[in-house]
């Protein structure tokens, strides 16, 4: 199988991307967004919606041209609130992309899968490209696909924790069974963890805190890009098998000079 950057495309709602890294823009200085996007080679960047304040900088002035804005519905605790936020997001961005987040829980910030399905049903009918953030659950993912979701975005660990692939087994089930792109979102703290998720067959990685809490944000963004690319290539290459007991020599066993 030959797969070049040009032929190995990520397709979301009919839009194609060569990058498999979705970068968050929260919790770091807007001054660093441009460098982070460029080092990440990211083509999609997420944003939140909040009340306008008079002293606030306009984040749109810091976004490199040609980058797709993926608004999120963070702050929504019910399907209805998320639907309202999605409508405002479409008015702001002029595009149909929406990262659907319905999070009633304040301690672990875990999404409400049932409300997320409800909101997806409404928004997909309205023409949104719905990318729902979920607890990795096969039944929910199937309901979301039936409701018209463009992707599913299962969490690897609670958001902002940098804990890595705590839900690995459940994400693997989604990768194996769900036909829309599976984008691992939240909890990925290291490029090695991003690489592991991509090796498993995830279609893309979304990360924010792991960059925002690094000492050098653009450099960590580049490290993530390389990890994601390495994992993707390994997945396409088909990882070699594991020997549980014993060993298999990789050098010839005959002809050893004594």
């Amino acid at each position: 199988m030959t797969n070049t950057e040009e032929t190995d495309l990520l397709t979301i709602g009919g839009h194609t991307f060569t990058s498999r890294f979705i970068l968050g823009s929260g919790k770091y200085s807007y001054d660093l967004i441009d460098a982070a996007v460029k080092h990440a080679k990211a083509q999609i960047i997420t944003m939140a919606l909040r009340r306008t304040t008079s002293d606030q900088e306009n984040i749109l002035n810091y976004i490199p041209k040609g980058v797709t804005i993926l608004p999120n519905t963070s702050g929504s605790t019910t399907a209805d609130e998320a639907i309202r936020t999605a409508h405002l997001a479409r008015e702001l961005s002029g595009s149909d992309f929406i990262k659907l987040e319905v999070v009633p829980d304040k301690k672990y910030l875990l999404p409400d899968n049932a409300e997320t399905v409800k909101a997806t049903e409404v928004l997909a009918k309205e023409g949104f490209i719905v990318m729902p953030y979920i607890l990795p659950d096969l039944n929910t993912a199937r309901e979301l696909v039936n409701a018209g979701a463009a992707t599913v975005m299962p969490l690897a660990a609670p958001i902002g924790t940098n804990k890595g692939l705590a839900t690995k087994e459940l994400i693997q089930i989604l990768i194996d069974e769900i036909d829309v792109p599976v984008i691992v979102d939240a909890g990925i703290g290291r490029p090695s963890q991003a690489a592991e998720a991509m090796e498993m067959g995830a279609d893309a990685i979304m990360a924010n805190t792991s960059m925002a809490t690094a000492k050098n944000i653009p450099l960590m963004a580049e490290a993530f890009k390389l990890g994601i690319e390495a994992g993707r290539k390994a997945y396409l290459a088909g990882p070699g098998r594991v020997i549980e007991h014993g060993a298999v020599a990789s050098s010839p066993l005959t002809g050893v000079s004594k």
Partner: protein
Amino acid sequence: MVTVNGEEVAVAGTSIATLLTQRNAPVSNLAVELNGKIVPRSDFANVLLKENDKVEIISFVGGG
């Protein structure tokens, strides 16, 4: 009084466009909701605010 982003402001009788100018709001990065309904950008100059209206002015900010 008109409630703008949760605060009472004496702007009844003025247009949404005037309100946005007064608040130095970033025109390229905002959406406006009046009493729960989105107001298209093209209507900002025409829509006058009334007593007890509720206005939400929303922008993109950094977020993951």
